[in-house]
């Protein structure tokens, strides 16, 4: 098991390298760079622009830029001095601090924010994570019971209305749903519009109950919009999987044993129907993150998606690459979790030794 884990983590390295390389290539294919917007500024001379571009290696071709980026991950200029200053700062836990600084990769400073990209991302990541998690809880929490209900009561009015809801959910685009939600929030005044919390809580203790409640209140509507699209698909998937296993012979076997219908459905049908859904679970993590791009922008949720989009528009390459890598890592982690769940739930699937 430990070996398997290490293997999976090692597999992530070439993928992350490939993704970063591709991101550099794609950024190079877009016309202009971060400083193009400054060209029209009469107060900045051509020489100054050239200096700035040289400083960020923007005058080189993309693969050279990539080389610099790779080198700066761990071996940036002046890293030794940086480590030395960390060593001299405080006696307490200096060894640990130096090791941490030496090992943690440096994704470079964002061009527009003049702050380390990793810092910017960690700030936003939490918001995106909360949004995705909430959306996932909503989607799975509603879709699975409804799907099971629809399958057990096949062809009843329950099943039909669930099909109707699923049809609606699948056909309304996220952008439209987001706008409708904003309109709903505005006209009823029940939900705040945009942001993660109200201004009045600025500076209040992070974990105080009223502040958390306020955050939850802000979270609810974007999460519901994000959940709506995956909910419909999940519900249909659950229904069809369960219908398949309910028809399986071992379900009849269980009935023939004299097992009660509730147990037959739970123990024999449902536990076998859940397999494909566990695979979807991993992918849905990625789907929620990519879906978050749209929802975060429409509903002004300060998450990773919005940060990435803004960085892309500004051609702030260190931030773009760092954000894309972050999303990739999350996707791989999601798949990994799905694999583990699958192995745990199905004895036929054995992880390779």
């Amino acid at each position, binding site marked *: 098991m430990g070996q398997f884990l290490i293997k999976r983590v090692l597999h992530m390295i070439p993928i992350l390298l490939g993704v970063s390389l591709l991101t550099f290539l794609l950024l190079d294919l877009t016309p202009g760079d971060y400083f193009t917007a400054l060209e029209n500024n009469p107060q900045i001379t051509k020489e100054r622009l050239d200096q700035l571009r040289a400083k960020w290696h923007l005058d080189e071709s993309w693969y050279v830029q990539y080389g610099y980026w790779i080198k700066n991950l761990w071996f940036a200029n002046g890293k030794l001095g940086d480590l030395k200053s960390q060593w001299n700062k405080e006696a307490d836990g200096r060894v640990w601090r130096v090791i941490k600084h030496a090992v943690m990769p440096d994704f470079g400073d964002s061009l527009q924010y003049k702050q380390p990209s990793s810092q910017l991302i960690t700030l936003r990541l939490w918001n995106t994570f909360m949004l995705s998690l909430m959306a996932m809880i909503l989607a799975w929490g509603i879709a699975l019971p409804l799907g099971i209900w629809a399958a057990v009561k096949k062809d009843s009015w329950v099943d039909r209305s669930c099909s109707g809801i699923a049809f609606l959910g699948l056909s309304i685009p996220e952008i439209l749903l987001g706008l409708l939600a904003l309109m709903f929030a505005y006209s009823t005044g029940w939900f705040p519009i945009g942001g993660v919390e109200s201004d009045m809580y600025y500076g209040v203790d992070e974990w105080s109950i009223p502040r958390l409640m306020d955050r939850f209140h802000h979270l609810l509507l974007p999460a519901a919009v994000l959940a709506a699209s995956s909910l419909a698909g999940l519900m249909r998937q659950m229904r069809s999987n369960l219908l398949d296993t309910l028809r399986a012979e*071992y379900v009849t076997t269980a009935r023939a*044993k004299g097992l009660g219908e509730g147990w037959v459905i739970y123990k024999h049908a449902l536990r076998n129907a859940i397999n494909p859904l566990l695979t979807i679970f991993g992918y849905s993590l990625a789907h929620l993150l990519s879906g978050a791009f749209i929802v975060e922008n429409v509903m002004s949720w300060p998450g990773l998606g919005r940060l990435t989009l803004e960085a892309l528009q500004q051609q702030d390459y260190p931030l773009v690459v760092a954000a894309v890598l972050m999303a990739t890592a999350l996707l791989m982690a999601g798949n990994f979790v799905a694999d583990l769940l699958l192995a745990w739930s199905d004895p036929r699937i054995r992880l390779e030794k």
Partner: protein
Amino acid sequence: MSLLKVNNLKVYFPVKHGLFSRVKAHVKAVDGVSLHIEPGETLGLVGESGCGKTTLGRSIIRLIEPTSGTVEFDGEQITELSGGELRSSRRKFQMIFQDPYSSLNPRMTVGQIIGEAIDIHHLAANSVAKEARVQELLKAVGLDPIYAQRYPHEFSGGQRQRIGIARALAVEPKLIVCDEPVSALDVSVQAQIINLLKDLQVQKGLAYLFIAHDLAVVEHISQRVMVMYLGKVVELADSQKVCREPKHPYSQALISAVPVVDPDSKRQRIILPGDVPSPIDPPTGCVFHPRCPVAEARCKVESPALREITPGHWAACHLAK
């Protein structure tokens, strides 16, 4: 007294069409079947695919709800039992399924599959007794007791069918409905399973309703044989009589189709024209008349009753003598 008495059992499936699922017609899968099985006896049930043998077997033990008719088992009206009563009665009649691959839950170990039945009917005082019972059952069907820890996918078809038999035996039933228990197995394994079933019958005094389409297998294991065609019984007699001197033209055709290991055999095969008609709209009169080589005018109008042609030999044909 008979162990099982089935009287005029009918199973009709509605055929639904359109937006509001109106019932357009009925598939008459089992159409008025009566039979009885004595304790410790094997009744063979043969017929071609789609004639309703599986539906009959399953509706007798109410895995499919019968449309009408009664089933009396050991003095108890099974057709009138409520859900809970039916579940506790299931202890007395079990089933062995055709497909040993799909009939075992892939997520449970063999021990769990067999043990579940013991749990449901509270047949073991504690988990130690249950495990001992599971091992004893595995031994009874010729498997190593160690296999209790394994999952179904680790076994071959024949072994899985043995597990299915052990599962059915776990609750000490009096009747086992065997739904083509060997048709999914290799020929070499078929004989082992059949002989295992025969041995168990002698040891435990089991009664079988043995469903098959292979007449040779049925003749080997059954005391009496029933032939079905399109949801109806066409012939019922001792297995020797059905196989040696069939009275119904359909049985005659069926018997003549059994391959004989003799290249010089001059036996004449009866080839039936056409296909089995749709059970949604069965032919009038005798359901077999469109394919019958000896049909007369009255066969088209008059439905023949099952009558005793010679003592103990029943056939549903106007012309049988």
